[in-house]
């Protein structure tokens, strides 16, 4: 770090003499598209927090006098079949999407990181077990895996009656299903990277100094894998948001009545035919914007954080 201070201005411009993270932030800032996408993501998060506070009593706003109204000055995106404001519903859907995306990856990424690094570092039977575990799970393809686990969770309530009661039939089950089902990609990447890192000199040096396996893994190897974790978090977010919409659409996602883009599309799937386009359009449009922003930002982030991909 002391070196960075003395680096000349020329090197600064060339992007040298900065840490990986400093360089990545610098690159992303200079990229207007990445910055715009990041702004969209932040906006969605802010909206999600704000909507859950502003529309706390959304369920009670049913108004049968104003059912199925087209967009107007008082309801910018029209009203749904119960006379509720579609704009409010869409913004509340952002809350579900953002929490599901975040929670699923809060479970999946550390799980994949830890299993991957342990398999890669210790090798032998540990590696065999982890590889068996993820090939097994990966062999049930994508959405079918999620449908199966949500089916199993339908009537399951963990810690029933206690303070920590968790009804896995609803959104908590969704977090867990997405979390335990989407660590595979992270695990594969981390395992392959650990194989490379563990033969580097500095790891050998740490071992020669007599440090234990777990200490080497968590002090010396894991910090060098954080960039993979961050990239996987962003890309995994897209997958979780899309999966939530499809599962909710199929009735396997959030509890019935929770405003989410998937339930909105499901509720309005026959509306299009009679010309009520606003609810479906609002949900699809909201989803399109966040998925686009996350995809582009994730790609740019990967380019910025993974030096091998630089051209």
């Amino acid at each position, binding site marked *: 770090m002391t070196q960075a201070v003395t680096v000349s201005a020329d090197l600064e411009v060339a992007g040298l003499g900065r840490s990986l993270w400093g360089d990545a932030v610098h690159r992303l800032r200079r990229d207007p598209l990445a910055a715009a996408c990041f702004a969209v993501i932040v906006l969605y998060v802010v909206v999600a927090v704000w909507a859950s506070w502003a529309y706390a009593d959304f369920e009670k706003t049913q108004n049968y006098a104003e059912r199925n109204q087209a967009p107007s000055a008082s309801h910018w995106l029209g009203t749904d079949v119960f006379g509720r404001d579609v704009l409010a519903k869409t913004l509340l859907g952002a809350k579900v999407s953002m929490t599901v995306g975040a929670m699923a990856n809060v479970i999946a990424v550390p799980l994949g990181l830890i299993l991957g690094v342990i398999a890669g570092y210790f090798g032998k039977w540990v590696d065999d077990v982890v590889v*068996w*575990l993820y*090939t*097994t*799970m990966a*062999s*049930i*393809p994508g*959405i*079918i895996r999620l*449908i*199966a*686990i949500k*089916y*199993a*969770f*339908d*009537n*399951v309530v963990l810690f029933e009656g206690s303070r920590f009661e968790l009804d896995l039939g609803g959104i908590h089950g969704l977090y867990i299903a997405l979390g335990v089902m989407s660590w595979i990609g992270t695990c594969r990447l981390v395992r392959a990277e650990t194989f490379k890192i563990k033969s580097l000199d500095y790891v050998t040096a740490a071992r020669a100094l007599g440090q234990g396996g777990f200490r080497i893994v968590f002090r010396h190897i894991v910090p060098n894998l954080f960039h993979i974790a961050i990239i996987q978090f962003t890309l995994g977010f897209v997958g979780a948001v*899309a999966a939530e*919409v*499809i599962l909710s*659409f*199929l*009735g*396997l996602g959030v509890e019935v009545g929770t405003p989410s883009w998937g339930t909105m*599309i499901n509720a309005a*799937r026959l509306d*299009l*035919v009679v010309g009520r386009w606003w609810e*479906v359009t609002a949900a*699809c449009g909201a*989803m*399109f914007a966040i*998925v*686009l922003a996350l*995809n*582009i930002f994730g790609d740019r982030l990967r380019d910025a954080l993974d030096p091998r991909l630089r*051209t």
Partner: protein
Amino acid sequence: MGAYVVRRLVQSVFTIFGVMLLTFLLFRVVAGEIASAHLGPRATAKQLAEWRAKHGYDKPLLINRNAGEPWYDTQFLSYMTRVPAFQTRSVITNERLLDIIIERAPYSLAITVPAMALGWVLAMIVATIVAYYRASLIDHVGVFLAVLGMCVPYLAFIMAGQMLMFRVAPRLAYGLASPFSIYVPVAIAVIAGLGGGVRFYRTVIVDEANRDYVRTARAKGVPLPGVMFKHILRNCMLPILTNLVLAIPFLIMGSLLLETFFGIPGLGDLLLSSITNRDEPIVSGLTYLTALIYTLGVLLTDVLYAVFDPRVQLT
């Protein structure tokens, strides 16, 4: 070579065993009771017990401790022996899964085979063009459109397509009334998958085009189309074929959403209705089917890699 194939086969058996273990744990242990779901909340204890006995849910899960019965006479054993050969029976209609699959799979294949073939050809053509003009305006516009297409929700494609058909030709918008009905979901699947396909194939082609041997070929004067078709595309085939093989499970299962929307009685539609009806033997059988096909597909690709690419070492 022989030893490699045998070892990969043994690994696949372990994977399939793992899948069955996982589905058994999920559907029988985690999901728990399904008798009351089928008989309703007012069923008596006797009715529930009869239902369980009829469908084999009365046995112990893992170890039989009942006096006079062998320890291995359990749900686990019957699950492990029936699921692999698709001998489970629906708890609702009592049909054997194998018969259901034979009856329904053609509908799924009728959508997915043309969709995959057509989608692949189209995506390859567009990707080749875009990669050929890489770093030019055509490339930038192409990639931009592909990313946009990837981000439109799949449900939006389906609903817009069905809506359009209701306006243009209502007869084709639902069911199988006309022989042309099947082409509507096919077209939707092709269009919805195009963005992701183009982007993936473009990346593969551009990666290959940046290699040294391509530069050598161009330096010695091979014309650009020759480089593209004779050198680059041939070397891209392995990753592209892998990607295709990995999509095979979806060939069999069909597109879950398309089948539901268009009322096509395929396997995807069966899976979703079995989930709703809590028809556990069908759900577990179909999950196993997809895993089996996927595993066999991966096995086949690995072996073909070893056969066709001399650089791949058999380890």
